[in-house]
């Protein structure tokens, strides 16, 4: 009996593609023979827009890249401009920045767990994950007034200091979260059905992963100990004590375990920050052009000029976003607007490896492997 291959379209509107993403699969029965990814449904021209906005005006656009974790996006851009201009950032501002980023890392991994398990069929985890995320979003609302797209960072610091009552609420959240992560691990990690769906699915070896340009937890799940916070430390990370979570098995289960361990490490970092945060200004004093305004030790947004011209030059700076290596390549020509901003997004580069991972598997395996890559379409398409 002859069989034919047919083309199956996992269309842009699909519940488990985490956004508008299209897979063109060539199938032989149940097995996938070839997978072609079609992108661009969410392309908004962010890089072109950057050339028409001043450096300060572009910060809200960076929020919309990876909208689940907006703080690290802000930070990557702001760090690039600060490197270009040579601005120094006060110490307290750095502490607040890392606090916001690590909190956002926890939120991101909760959403990851929830949507991965929803795709696999257990619909309870997403409810629990969003319940914890709600508490974290309330903390963010106390901090900067927004729940999802923060625009909290400024060139030279952050927008405002920590409000009163933030640290006690943060402590409460951390204690609660510690117990909950243990609960979730007990419920999920040993579940036989979960193990059957995730072990040895979506295997990619370390050399291939590096060759494809994968970074972040997806790479650490293949045994490569590459964490930018350890390799090229930035901000206050050299002073903090944490470890990079690496699992050598190269399959989906390893990538999942890396993120669960990262949540615990983020809690550990948050505790250290809360213990050692110093007192100082939160935004830098100005360095170019406009005369300083005196007084007002905190919320000194007016210290730093709004129209800001860094010297001409280029810089590429990268950070460890929750999804991988997020980098901004900023080219300045000495005017108030950047000449070119190129965004190196982790989801885009991680997605390159999907066709390699998925050939020879079945569609439920594609969904499981794709869920562990943790892609957000705003990041892929920009």
């Amino acid at each position, binding site marked *: 009996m002859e069989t034919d291959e047919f083309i*199956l379209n996992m269309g842009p509107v699909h519940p488990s593609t985490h956004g508008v993403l299209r897979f063109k699969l060539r199938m032989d029965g149940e097995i996938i023979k070839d997978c072609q990814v079609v992108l661009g449904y969410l392309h908004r021209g962010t890089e072109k827009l950057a050339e028409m906005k001043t450096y300060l005006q572009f910060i809200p656009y960076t929020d919309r890249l990876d909208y689940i974790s907006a703080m690290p996006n802000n930070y990557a851009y702001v760090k690039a401009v600060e490197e270009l201009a040579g601005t120094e950032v006060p110490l307290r501002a750095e502490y607040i920045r890392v606090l916001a980023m690590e909190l956002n890392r926890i939120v991101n991994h909760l959403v990851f767990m929830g949507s991965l398990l929803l795709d*696999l*069929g*257990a619909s309870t985890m997403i409810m*629990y994950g969003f*319940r914890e995320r709600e508490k974290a979003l309330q903390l963010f609302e106390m901090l900067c007034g927004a729940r999802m797209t923060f625009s909290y960072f400024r060139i030279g610091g952050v927008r405002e200091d920590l409000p009163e009552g933030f640290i006690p609420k943060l402590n409460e959240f951390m204690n609660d979260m510690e117990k909950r992560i243990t609960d979730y691990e007990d*419920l999920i990690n040993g579940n036989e059905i979960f193990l059957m769906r995730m072990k040895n699915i979506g295997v990619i070896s370390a050399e291939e992963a590096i060759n494809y340009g994968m970074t972040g937890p997806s790479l650490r799940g293949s045994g490569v100990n590459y964490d930018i916070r350890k390799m090229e430390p930035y901000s206050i990370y050299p002073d903090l004590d944490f470890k990079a979570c690496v699992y050598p098995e190269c399959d989906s289960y390893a990538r999942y375990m890396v993120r669960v361990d990262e949540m615990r490490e983020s809690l550990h970092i948050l505790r250290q920050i809360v213990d050692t945060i110093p007192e100082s200004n939160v935004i830098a004093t100005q360095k170019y052009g406009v005369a300083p305004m005196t007084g007002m030790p905190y919320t000194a947004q007016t210290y730093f000029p709004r129209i800001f011209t860094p010297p001409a030059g280029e810089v590429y700076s990268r950070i460890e976003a929750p999804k991988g290596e997020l980098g901004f390549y900023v080219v300045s020509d000495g005017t108030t607007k950047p000449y070119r901003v190129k965004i190196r997004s982790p989801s885009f580069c991680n997605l390159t490896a999907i066709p390699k991972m998925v050939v020879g598997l079945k569609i*439920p395996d594609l969904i499981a492997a794709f869920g562990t890559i943790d892609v957000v379409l705003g990041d892929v398409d920009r």
Partner: protein
Amino acid sequence: MIANAYELIVYILTMTGIYEPTYALFQSFGAEYLLRVIIVFFEIGILFVFVLLTVMFLTWMERKVVAMVQSRYGPMVTGPRGLFQPVMDGVKLIGKEDIIPEKADRWIFTLAPFIVFVPALLVFIPLPFGESLIISDLRVGLLYIIAISALSPVAILLAGWASNNKYALLGAMRAVAQDISYTIPLALSAIAVVMLTGSLSTVDIVNAQSGTWFGIIPKWFILLQPLGFVLFLIASIAEMGRIPFDFQESEQELVAGFFTEYSGMKFAMFFLAEYAHLFAVSGIIVTLFLGGWSGPVLPFIPVQITSLVYFLIKTYVVIFFAMWLRDTVPRVRIDQLLNLGWKIMIPLALLNLLVTGFLVTAGVI
């Protein structure tokens, strides 16, 4: 000893003095069989209404149980605590446009939901809801139940074929594969129970589980057949297509289920059939392994009512377990599912049969 529901109704009518005159009335027309037919329709009507009400209640219960596990409320708006939600769902589904695809086979497309729904109701005939609350105590009751359940793959294939949609057909074929591969361990586990009682009649099976050892431990077959119970439970959850075996209905799966093209009332019938099936299967599990309607007899209440209450409590415990399972574990992939059915459960069921047969012949149990 009142044997079945017909005799119960006759007994009640005789006690209240209605039966004799009406019988005489019908006999004067020479049509006493007509009275019999009317009573039979009446008892079937009661069963039908009871099953439909239970099914509607089960849809509400499922949403509430799932919501409880997920730490949220569930339906709360329609009626007290959301109890009228199934009614509202029914009204909504009746009001939907009834779409039949252009190239579909109209007759079979319309008939398929009924062919799925009717066996789900027929299964209730030999199911003993309580002492003497059984429509008909068939001597081959258990065989009848398994045979009727085996009709559903036919209806599923009809539904998938008549939709004229290649994905619906693929979904139907997968559902049929799942169904038949799990009917075998189901039947084998049930046969082990039959070995213990020596009879296929459901009433005999329940009577064999009455009584206690040492005055406390009831003689339920779950204690004599633990492996059989587990296998029967897993096989029935797989046959019903619930999580963890519900890749048919998973929205995350690409190929849609066999009921993709159905809308409105026809779609509702598939869903009602599924919940009726759930209730029936829980009833069968209770009958076979958990002692049916047996329980301690209370002094002043007629034994029919207490036995009904015990039966319903036990059935709802099994249903609650199935619903609890649904929102705790992820889905099993289709090839892992068939693997489990053919390579693991059938050998275990055969082993169970062997051991039981050996112990029964040796006179131990």
